[in-house]
């Protein structure tokens, strides 16, 4: 076949698209970076997203709670110790749940005492109907009363000692606000003789010493309490000048008892509490604890927020320091390999096999510094080895790849190759590792405070573990002290684990496309 047979005349050629520039069509999709891809795949994992949102809410709670509540961690009021969680909404609606009430079954004496508080202060102490039942135990029959007790109002009346100025100020407060705080004092010689009741200000009625040196109430013939208020003889020795008189009487009773340098006064504790905090102007308007109080009368809600904040703070710092040190250590190990690696790996192995308990106890006894610092050092000493191992693995995988060789040939220095070229490959696993360190730190801290190895309850500091440890002692009597921290820590651990797992899957490029 000869070429000239196929000669095509030039007229047959037509220019096509003389005006168009020829080019490739533009890519319609945007290129995805590693992180964008990870984010996209993370967003598909619903459980992890929910966990991330919960973590966000818990963080917000921990950060904002101090502004929502007037209480602080240092706040404590012994009189309101062990009061139960109270939500004003439930309380006002009269729903027997989360209203500061406690189901009680008590004997005759305790029942009468609660009744007396209710009668004197005209405030509901017994919130529900009373059910009585007979119980025979070892041949003796006694009546037991079960009802719902208002733990706030059951505090009733307290003795307080006031200086002259305080006493006057309290009287002025009464007149100005029209609330009776000071109640008539009881006759000294009629007060209960039984040791455990001597300082019980709630006994305003006649009692006698019964069997077993226990207080017994004396009733009149109609079954009513007999008041033992001290009669006013008109000598003015109580220096009571307030217009407010108990039960509308015109000064029949004395209202204070002179002590050495002070006045002993019976106060309606709820009103006195309001008065005290109004004077101190600390924003506390009434005794109301959303999550109840603990054995020292600290507000559980505030402690919980503060404890969470502390735990998270510690965990974040430990995670970031571990990440930093571990990454550098692991990078050096993995990059140089050989002898350096063997020696450094031995050190890691040694450090990571020391039981944490030994580290923390030795630190605790050798350094007389705050337990927070000890905890931090202990976590740091043993914690970074995991990060180092992860980084080392990634370096071993990538250091012999061609692009590293290219970089080296082009004259890049070791440091640049390590952190500019190889390290970014490890970022995904390192971030995941750091996130999963956080629940680990929280768990360890909690266990250690729980076991009493370290104590973190000083001044304005508390931790979840400390709260759990205190709560454990009152598990059977006041479970609310344990309930809230437990719920909280469970939620925290669960969401961090879910979040971490989601991150791990998202950062793992080999799982790409498997979830569809």
């Amino acid at each position, binding site marked *: 076949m000869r070429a000239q047979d196929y000669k095509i005349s030039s007229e047959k050629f037509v220019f096509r698209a003389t005006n168009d520039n020829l080019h490739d069509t533009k890519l319609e999709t945007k290129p995805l970076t590693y992180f964008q891809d990870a984010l996209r795949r993370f967003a598909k994992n619903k459980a992890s997203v929910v966990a991330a949102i919960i973590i966000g809410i818990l963080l917000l709670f921990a950060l904002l709670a101090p502004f929502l509540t007037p209480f602080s961690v240092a706040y404590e009021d012994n009189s309101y110790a062990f009061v139960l969680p109270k939500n004003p909404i439930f309380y006002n609606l009269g729903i027997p749940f989360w209203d500061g009430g406690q189901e009680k079954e008590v004997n005759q004496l305790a029942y009468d005492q609660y009744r007396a508080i209710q009668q004197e202060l005209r405030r509901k102490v017994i919130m529900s109907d009373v059910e009585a039942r007979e119980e025979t135990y070892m041949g003796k029959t006694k009546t037991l009363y079960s009802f719902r007790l208002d733990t706030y109002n059951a505090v009733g009346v307290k003795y307080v000692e006031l200086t002259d100025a305080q006493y006057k100020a309290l009287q002025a407060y009464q007149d100005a606000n029209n609330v009776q705080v000071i109640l008539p004092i009881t006759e000294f010689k009629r007060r209960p003789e039984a040791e455990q009741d001597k300082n019980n200000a709630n006994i305003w009625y006649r009692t006698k010493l019964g069997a077993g040196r226990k207080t017994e109430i004396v009733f009149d013939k109609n079954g009513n309490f007999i008041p033992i208020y001290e009669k006013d003889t008109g000598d003015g020795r109580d220096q009571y000048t307030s217009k407010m008189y108990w039960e509308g009487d015109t000064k029949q009773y004395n209202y204070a008892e002179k002590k050495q340098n002070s006045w002993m006064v019976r106060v309606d504790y709820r009103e006195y509490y309001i008065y005290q905090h109004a004077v101190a102007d600390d924003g506390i308007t009434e005794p109301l604890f959303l999550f109840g109080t603990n054995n020292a009368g600290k507000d559980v809600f505030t402690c919980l927020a503060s404890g969470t904040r502390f735990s998270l703070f510690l965990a974040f710092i430990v995670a970031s320091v571990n990440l930093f040190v571990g990454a550098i250590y692991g990078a050096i190990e993995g990059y140089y390999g050989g002898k350096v690696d063997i020696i450094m790996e031995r050190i890691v*192995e*040694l450090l990571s*096999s*020391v*039981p944490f*308990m*030994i580290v923390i*106890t*030795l630190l605790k*006894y*050798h350094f007389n510094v705050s337990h927070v610092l000890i905890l931090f050092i202990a976590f740091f000493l043993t914690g970074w080895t995991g990060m180092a191992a992860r980084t080392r693995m990634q370096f071993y995988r990538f250091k012999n790849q061609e692009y590293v060789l290219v970089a080296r040939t082009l004259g890049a220095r070791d440091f640049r190759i390590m952190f500019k070229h190889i390290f970014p490959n490890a970022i995904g696993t390192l971030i995941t590792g750091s996130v999963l360190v956080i*629940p680990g730190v929280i*768990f360890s801290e*909690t*266990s250690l405070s*729980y*076991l*009493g*190895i370290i104590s973190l309850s000083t001044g304005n500091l508390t931790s979840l573990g400390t709260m*759990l440890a205190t709560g*454990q002692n009152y*598990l*059977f009597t006041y*479970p609310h002290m*344990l309930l809230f921290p*437990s719920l909280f*820590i*469970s939620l925290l*651990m*669960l969401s*961090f*684990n*879910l979040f971490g797992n989601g991150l791990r899957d998202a950062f793992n490029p080999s799982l790409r496309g498997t979830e569809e």
Partner: protein
Amino acid sequence: MYMFKYVLKRIGLMVMTFSIIFVVCFVLIKLLPVDTTSVGVGEDATKLLTQLKARGYDRPIMEQFGLYLRRIVLDGDFGVGVSMPEYRGQNVWDVFIEKLPPTILINIYSSLFAVPLGIALGIFAALKKNKWQDHVISTAVMVFISVPSFVYASLLLYTVCFKFDLLPLKMASLAEANNNYFSWTMFKSMIPAVLAMSFGSIAGYARGTRAELTEVLTSEFMLLARTKGLTKSMATIRHALRNAMVPIFPSIVGEFIGVLSGSLVIEKIFTIPGVGGLYLTAINSMDYDFYMMLSGFYLLVSLVAALVIDLSYGFIDPRIRMGAR
């Protein structure tokens, strides 16, 4: 032979690690002053001090270490209690042996309960992958792995033992159980602790088994097994399970070594008179000999467990050649 050499090398390294940590621990603990202030009224502090002196407590630390080792090797004598009133002057080893049975028993019971149940749940979840049974099991597993053991231990104690009064609140003493650790009273009083302890491991085994088995079930040899005519259950039992057990089995072995050490938290909650409680009191009252012996014990248990887990991979799976480059 190759394997033997490798095992020897690993054991050698383990012994080295153990000795270094032990010596450092010994030196650090001996640097602290001996606390005799806790000696109560009526107890003779000077007598105690003389006893300590006779044991060489005022010599240089390295000499003390030599004496300590010699006493251990020759007489099996780990020292005497000093700071804890109830064990003052008692032989550390004897007290330790006396405290060991409750810890071991509770751990063995919980392992016996947790291992089969966890694996069974894992297999079930893997076979029902992405059906509702799998989702229920996986969610429960996630919850039980995340929630700290003391939370559900307290929950168990409050509901089962206190509110409904089904089980005793604390472990029965040896006297209550007729000096028999295997009596029904004893067993019943251990149930709460055993349950609390096993939840976490059940979840762990279930998760591990599920993950392994789902991977194995999709591999090609399973297809071959089905093609050659095995039923699904036969193929699963004969081929899939065996392969899935490769990473699970070492952790079971590790768990059975770990039964010695137990859980400090669980022992505290359920007031179990075990080694954990002893260790805690020894720490809080700074009793050197108890602390040294128990720290060494915990260290050894954790090191041996880690080693055995590592080595057992090679023994159960011939494809894994240990120490190979």
